[in-house]
């Protein structure tokens, strides 16, 4: 229809109602201004998702969040009994502490990569509905396991009291290790979650891989045993193993109150950066195609 006609046409259109927010009294934030700018919404999403996971984990359990403390304690108890009686590792100084520090460090790694790997696949119904930055899901899983990790630190303090190991200023370096470990886990979770979308077989493979990795890391056996491994390249692998380095970093600062060897610190930094870089690279290049495969 010709558009050069009668401006009167528009004026005579019945005026639409000018009451967009009928129920709202004077609010500081109007309904037009309800959104975070695109880059700033992720923090709130992360917070809500972590709080959701946290609530779901402990809802309907009597002891609730106490389990986060109790669980590592009981695990440590079982393992220290088993390994000191059957495998005679009790010659290690402060063996219960040696165990629990390594265990919770391993646990945060295993939990976050396991959950992180599944995060994109599990978020499929959500990703098909709303526009969300996809990387929040793996990152959220790592943050959630960090929350559990922080609770299990209480268990570590209890064991320290029991073992009579006093806290020292060197412990203040432990958060550095935790931050590096988080970056390492975030990178690995990004990588795994992206790959798992395309190769579901990875999900099954990863649990086997984690088990092998756990035995290859001196969690419950003495670090000195690495020297007894016959092949040189295996020894090198075991020293390069990122989890060996993170566990050693934690033990040195928390139990032995010494500065970890330089190569351990450097390894931790390098592994954190390599993992994060690789994870971001793969995730970024693949994330556009996720929606077609989930």
């Amino acid at each position, binding site marked *: *229809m*010709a*558009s050069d*006609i*009668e401006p*009167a*046409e*528009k004026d*005579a*259109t*019945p005026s*639409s*109602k*000018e*009451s*967009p*927010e*009928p*129920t*709202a009294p004077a*609010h*500081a*934030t*109007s*309904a*037009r*201004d*309800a*959104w*975070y700018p*695109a880059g700033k*919404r992720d923090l*709130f*999403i992360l*917070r*809500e*998702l972590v*709080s*959701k996971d946290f*609530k*779901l984990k402990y*809802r309907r359990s009597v002891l609730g969040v106490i389990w986060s403390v109790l669980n590592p304690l009981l695990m440590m108890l079982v393992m220290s009994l088993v390994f000191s009686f059957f495998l005679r590792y009790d010659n290690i100084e402060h063996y219960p502490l040696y165990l629990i520090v390594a265990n919770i460090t391993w646990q945060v790694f295993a939990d976050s990569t396991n959950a992180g790997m599944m995060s994109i696949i599990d978020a499929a*119904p*959500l*990703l*098909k*509905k*709303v*526009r*969300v930055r996809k990387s929040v899901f793996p990152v959220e899983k790592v943050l959630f396991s960090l929350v559990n990790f922080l609770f299990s630190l209480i268990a570590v303090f209890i064991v320290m009291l029991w073992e009579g190991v006093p806290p020292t200023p060197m412990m203040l370096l432990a958060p550095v290790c935790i931050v590096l470990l988080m970056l390492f886990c975030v990178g690995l979770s990004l990588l795994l979650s992206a790959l798992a979308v395309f190769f579901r077989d990875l999900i099954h493979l990863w649990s086997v891989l984690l088990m092998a990795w756990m035995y290859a890391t001196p969690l419950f056996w003495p670090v000195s045993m690495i020297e007894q491994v016959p092949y040189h390249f295996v020894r090198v692998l075991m020293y390069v193993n990122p989890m060996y380095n993170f566990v050693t970093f934690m033990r040195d600062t928390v139990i032995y109150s010494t500065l970890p060897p330089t190569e351990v610190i450097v390894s931790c930094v390098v592994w954190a950066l390599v993992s994060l870089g690789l994870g971001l690279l793969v995730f970024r290049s693949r994330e*556009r195609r996720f*929606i*077609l495969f989930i």
Partner: protein
Amino acid sequence: MQDTLKLDGGGSVFLGLSSTSIRVGDKLEVTPHFRGVEKENFLCNYVWNLEGSWDKGDFDSTIEHVGHTIPRYTWEFVPKRPGRYRIAVDIEDSNRRFLGNIERWVIVAGKNSFMRPPVPPADAPTAVLAQDVSMIFNIASEQFNSLKEYFIAAAKHELTFKEFRALDHISFEVKHGEAFGLVGTNGSGKSTMLKIIAGVLEPSSGKVSVSGTIAPLIELGAGFDMELTAKENIYLNGALLGYRKDFIDEHFQDIVDFAELDGFMDMPLKNYSSGMVARIAFAIATVTEPDILIVDETLSVGDFLFQQKCEKRIKELVESDNVTVLLVSHDISLVERICDRVCWIEKGHMRMLGETDEVCEAYRSLERD
């Protein structure tokens, strides 16, 4: 159907309507505009009729007979019931020789139903711009039952994927404040287009740029977890929609009031009926006033009372000048009532893009085939 008639002597006459979309009881002015000729040399017969009900007496006409001292050139049309009306004026010369007629459609909405928002000016800023958008899905043409079969096929280069083009070079522009419709039969790619605009899907080629905030009323209740309470779900869903926390804090009571679920907020969602869940989801999605509202044909949820409430809320949003509306539907009458312009997508191809009346007319003719 033509709204302009060329007259001898270089003139023309165009059927002017004060609106093409009114409500029952509203007054519509019908005026033929003569250009380049003296209107006193012509006689006009005005006729209106409700589409498809000529035989039911839903029509009226005034014949201005020759010899009338003051020929009429304007009429008032006040419809008594909703529907699609044909407004026509027959043009005769002073000798009562029939020259032709000019006619246009008018959509008359019921008292409480949707209205087209005012057409934005031509220089209004762009809200949504789709440039040459194509979407291709790969469908594996064979199903492999074992890894061995897969590798054998891969080695023989027999791993073929059937390309499915859900959208094929679609381009359109939606102005700020406009109501834009996407029509098409089932599986024609309408929803894919909406998902691309909402940012859920990325187009295989082409570009969609959107300026402003979007409220997609396509998939409600994203991220709802049945184990969490309604309150927790409101915050979670709000966060995923990008709402600010302080906004949800302040408007929490509005959401609860709209959903009419006061006192149920600390109950896990699994104890809700599906209607209650849908109400909550709708209330969260519509508590804001977005720049761009994406509406799927499932406009309303819940029981009939709540459906009316939903429609009222969407109506408020649609009729607001600030909101750009993207409506997807195969219910053509809804599109006609709401939209200014329509894009017709058929099997992924853009069949037509233009004024609502033109496109809907063409789409209807497809229905009749």
